[in-house]
């Protein structure tokens, strides 16, 4: 027996004492344990059961036989996904949308936060912020509905562009505009809200730094470049790591609202495919296998980008 175990035994007392104390504790806190019951059941049923349910990716899951009774098929679903030439389309659609998101949406809140930070009329700034945060609280269904009402074939924007260009642009049903509409909606909905985290980081900047820089004759843009931007650098890196982790996530709740038979060619991302295969067509095992693959890649991406952040001298995610 090691000394550690002996110590532990000394602290806990002998076997009988240990059980007695445990019994007393359980009795004393019986009401607390009772309060814990709904929460623990919730986490087991709705969080942990699905986690173990991932095994169906390796089974031929049939609801009738259940998760435990279904036939084990190993890597069949993974092979059949890669054996199907269209998987490249799904992957490219996903990556293009993610890259566009990274390129056009990701910098938007940073720029907006920096511009807001330059405002000196605080009351006016507050007013603008109040307006900018509104769309964040609006349901995505309403956002897409508003887009349909304004950009659809009887909508105001559709008619105005038709008048200006002489020919209409089919914003809502053309594969060419699909991605831009998605990015546009995301920018409209989340840019204002996204500024909060950067504005919070900016409140931590020591104002003495600005004073010192001014004494040294630094102009406004040099102060922005040398003081303000470095102050939010680590926040930007953190957000970038999180973004990397979701490179393969295009989100299904937004996309399936915008997807239709006319833009199928570009709207089919991995997430949309998982939804269509799994929930619409009931191919549970196949869809779970694709979902599992996506999660594995996402975790790897987060680990890699976190490592890079460490190498760059940033704190990173953990």
């Amino acid at each position, binding site marked *: 027996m090691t000394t550690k175990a002996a110590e532990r035994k000394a602290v806990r007392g002998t076997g009988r004492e240990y059980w007695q104390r*445990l019994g007393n*504790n*359980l009795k004393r*806190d019986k009401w*607390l344990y009772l309060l814990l019951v*709904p*929460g623990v059941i*919730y*986490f087991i049923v*709705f*969080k942990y*059961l*699905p*986690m173990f*349910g*991932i095994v*169906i990716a390796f089974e031929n899951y049939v*609801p009738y036989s*259940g998760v435990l009774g279904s036939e084990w098929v190993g890597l069949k679903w993974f092979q059949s996904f890669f054996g199907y030439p269209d998987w490249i389309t799904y992957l490219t659609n996903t990556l293009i949308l993610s890259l566009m998101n990274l390129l056009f949406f990701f910098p938007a809140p940073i720029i*907006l936060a920096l511009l807001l930070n*330059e*405002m*000196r009329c*605080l009351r006016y700034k507050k*007013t*603008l912020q*109040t*307006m900018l945060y*509104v*769309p964040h*609280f609006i*349901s*995505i*269904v*309403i956002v*897409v*509905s508003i887009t*349909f*009402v304004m950009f*659809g074939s*009887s909508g*105001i924007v559709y008619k*105005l562009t038709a*008048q200006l260009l002489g020919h209409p642009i089919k914003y809502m049903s053309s594969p060419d505009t699909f991605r831009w509409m998605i990015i546009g909606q995301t920018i*409209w909905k989340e840019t204002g809200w996204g500024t*909060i985290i950067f504005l*919070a980081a900016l409140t931590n900047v020591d*104002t003495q730094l*600005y004073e010192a820089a*001014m004494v040294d004759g630094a*102009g*406004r843009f040099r*102060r922005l470049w040398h003081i303000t931007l470095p102050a939010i650098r680590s*926040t930007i890196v953190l957000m970038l790591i999180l973004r990397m982790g979701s490179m393969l996530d295009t989100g299904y709740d937004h996309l399936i*609202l915008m997807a239709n*038979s006319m833009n199928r060619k570009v709207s089919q991302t991995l997430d949309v495919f998982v939804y269509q295969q799994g*929930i619409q067509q009931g191919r*549970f095992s196949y*869809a*779970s296998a694709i979902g599992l693959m996506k999660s594995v890649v996402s975790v790897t991406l987060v680990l890699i980008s976190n490592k890079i952040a460490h190498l760059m001298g940033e704190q990173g995610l953990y």
Partner: protein
Amino acid sequence: MDKTISSPNRKLKISSGPVGQSSSVGSRIFDIFNYVFLTLVAVTTILPFVYIIGASFATEYEIATRPMFFIPQNVSTAAYEFIFSSNKILRGFTNSIFITVCGTAINLFCTVTMAYALSKTRLRGRNFFLNMVIISMFFSGGMIPGYIVIANILNLSNTYWSVLLPGAISAYNMMIVKNFFQSIPQELEESASMDGCTDIGVLLKIVLPLSLPVLATFGLFYAVGHWNAYFGAMIYMKSAKEKWPLQVLLRELIILSNGSAGDMNNMDPEFIQPPEQSVKMAVIVVSTVPIMLVYPFLQKYFVKGVMVGALKG
């Protein structure tokens, strides 16, 4: 961030922006550009709402003929009259209210009970339960296994439970409430348990009355989530149309009715004829009004919540 520093005879405004006389011409031009640009961005953000509200009160003829307007020439409430006489939409509205109220009650009950138990450091096995919550914040089974648990194992399809239960606790919110409970002075609770109160009695008589603002905040968070949710109701209550909340109905009314014929196969015959523009706009307004009513509170507390998360994370 601006900060005013008082010195004996003058007030100096410090910001990354220009100071007093020293501002250069370039800096001033930038200021003007910045104010104009940000104002335009903010106006663009809320302009769609203004247009939709205006047009929902216009006649169908005016929407079709006038290119751009915010205030209708002939105010008409026909769209709203149609909505409030349509059983389907009224039903959706009451369903949404029902789901929001019951869902929020379930959320608060489960969150508070679990948070209170876990706020007691003396509880045996506390670390085990805390880890259980934290791990679930990082890993999830994904969409399909979750669907199987709810639809095939628990058989909750086409019941309200399928949208009320799956999100009963947000791990993140629960941890914040737990931390709040831990910050309540222990002496208060101890004196009550001396008087013979059980832990549940202490929770009801001492802790809850002290945490009303916190409960209101998280109640609001949960309520907005329920009001805006559509995905759960869409996939779990597919064939129980009479239980659909407004958001799912909105999807059918506006989004599917615009789509191609193939997407309209599963549409309700009542709306196979796409509804008029003004009706669509009025439905959007009606489903946004509840959020707008609580928006002042939302902004106040949500911003704080994000700040807490940002500083901790």
